[in-house]
């Protein structure tokens, strides 16, 4: 059984990380857009009011200001809902963050279908694709709150733009806070040779559950936590393709342009094997509880199980 330590939104990793690390980075400045409490920056804002900027409901300005701050030596972390950060500000991120080679960290919270009852307007399912295509941008999709916390800390050590995608909903925490985390280096969670499952974000937990179900049916899966979608761990993908001869990718995101596409780009060039994609199939979400939506839109362990069985036929 996958051990669940607790249930917690991954976004809380952001606030915890910044509070712990603030004294180590005197130039660190957090920027919110009327969303500090919901992104988990509230405590940081209270403790370090002189290092917190609330721009109001003006996300484009938040990104521009972050770039300006970084160009004069500050270390800005912008956080608001992923929809309004990666979505609304895409061009500012391209022109001002990336093209300036600025050292800005962007943390999009409330990403994906699991934001739930707020509905499709808030459920960004395109941000991995949008951020991944930008030069100078790294993209990290932590699988739980513990991983989110360490990812935020590691992103501050890295010079350059980073986008971190976090969730709103309380989700299973299953990684240890002490786990080693290297940006760009995937984690091998489970060994197996019948099928490779490569996942990011909330889908990592579902993948582990799926692997357990499949094991009972005599199918052994190799499960990879691909927390960094860019730069992607090419070696881990090639090794998985060689060992398993087929791959299923899982993401809480459109199947177009996200993790699945990034994996396919590596597979097709280096070691072509059949691949299937668990993700949203060119649709918007809708209101409802996170769990119910994952079930309806095909993001639960049972869907991964079905997909693994399907792709194995094409080995």
């Amino acid at each position, binding site marked *: 059984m996958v051990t669940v330590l607790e249930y917690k939104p991954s976004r809380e990793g952001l606030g915890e990380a910044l509070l712990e690390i603030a004294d180590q980075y005197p130039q660190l400045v957090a920027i919110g857009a009327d969303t500090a409490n919901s992104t988990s920056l509230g405590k940081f804002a209270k403790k370090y009011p002189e290092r917190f900027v609330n721009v109001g409901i003006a996300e484009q300005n938040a990104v*521009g200001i*972050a770039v300006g701050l970084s*160009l*004069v030596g500050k270390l800005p972390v912008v956080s608001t809902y992923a929809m309004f950060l990666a979505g609304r500000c895409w061009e500012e991120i391209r022109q*001002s963050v990336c*093209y300036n080679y600025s050292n800005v960290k962007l943390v999009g919270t409330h990403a994906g279908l699991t934001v739930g009852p707020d509905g499709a307007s808030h459920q960004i399912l395109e941000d991995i694709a949008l951020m991944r295509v930008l030069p100078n941008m790294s993209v990290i999709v932590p699988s739980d709150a513990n991983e989110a916390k360490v990812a935020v800390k590691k992103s501050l050590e890295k010079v350059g733009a980073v986008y971190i995608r976090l969730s709103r909903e309380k989700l299973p925490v299953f990684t240890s806070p002490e786990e080693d985390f290297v940006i760009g280096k995937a984690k091998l969670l489970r060994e197996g040779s019948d099928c490779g499952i490569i996942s990011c974000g909330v889908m990592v937990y579902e993948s582990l559950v799926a692997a357990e179900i499949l094991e009972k049916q005599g199918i052994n899966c190799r499960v990879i936590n691909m927390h960094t979608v860019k730069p992607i761990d090419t070696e881990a993908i090639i090794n998985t393709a060689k060992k398993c001869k087929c791959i299923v990718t899982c993401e809480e995101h459109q199947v177009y342009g996200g993790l699945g596409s990034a994996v396919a780009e590596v597979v097709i060039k280096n070691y072509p094997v059949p691949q299937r994609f668990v993700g949203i199939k060119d649709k918007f979400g809708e209101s409802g509880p996170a769990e119910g939506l994952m079930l309806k839109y095909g993001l639960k362990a049972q869907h991964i199980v079905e997909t693994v069985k399907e792709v194995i036929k094409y080995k």
Partner: protein
Amino acid sequence: MEKENIRYSELERLCKEFRKTILKIITEAGSGHPGGSLSVVEILTTLYYLHLNHNPKNPFDDKRDRVVLSKGHSCPALYVILAELGYFDKQELHNLRKVNSILQGHPARVYNGGDEVKFVPGIEVSTGSLGYGLSVAVGMALGFKMDNKQNLVFAICSDGEHQEGSIWEAIMFAGFKQLDNLIEIVDYNKLQQESRIDDSVSLEPLKEKYISFNWQVYEVDGHKISELDTALADAKKYKGKPKVIIAHTVKGKGVSFMENNVDWHGKAPSKELLEQALKELEGK
């Protein structure tokens, strides 16, 4: 006073030379934006020669003031001035818009076409997509305030880009935060790419808009160095608010067939027309 007049006339002479070089390099490049480059000449010249704390020999000096050319398409004017000041070799001007040049069609802080990342001396922020520069300038001003630094930030914006919503987010924030280390200059040449601004979506009353957003406003003739100088001197001293100098200018200034003509927003003159323009400028 006489000394100042001599200084002004020297700068006027320089402006004439800048205009000629701008037109030459745009013609050589075969494309570019002469109209908005010619309208901003006195603004940039007065700023760089009389007010900016900078050191072309040490372009990345921490103590320098920052300039954000938010109207990035006017970069030929900036390039010509930076070259004259010694930020880079004047020879580079002839590579404007060409492959392997640090002088991009719109300003790039980093030239990324080579094997290694190369920071372009004098270009503080990559711009070109309108409406973004002011937010970046605001962030710089905020950062200097946070660190109790004395550096000033100058943002050169176009009139047309005030039609972008993002500009107003920056204006609202700067006024509210009383960022008095920020000085914006609007090159109000009244024309945008396709039409007169007043024939698309007017900015008026612009001065009153800025006042209501809690900015200190100056209005000057943007081709009179003495007026720009006085406004900049006052703006640098004025405390408690961000400052904007609304500089009334003429698009295509100095070349009769370009002046106030939307056709010259974004195209290079032919060699024949360049000769005509240069003769005209020489006669002035």
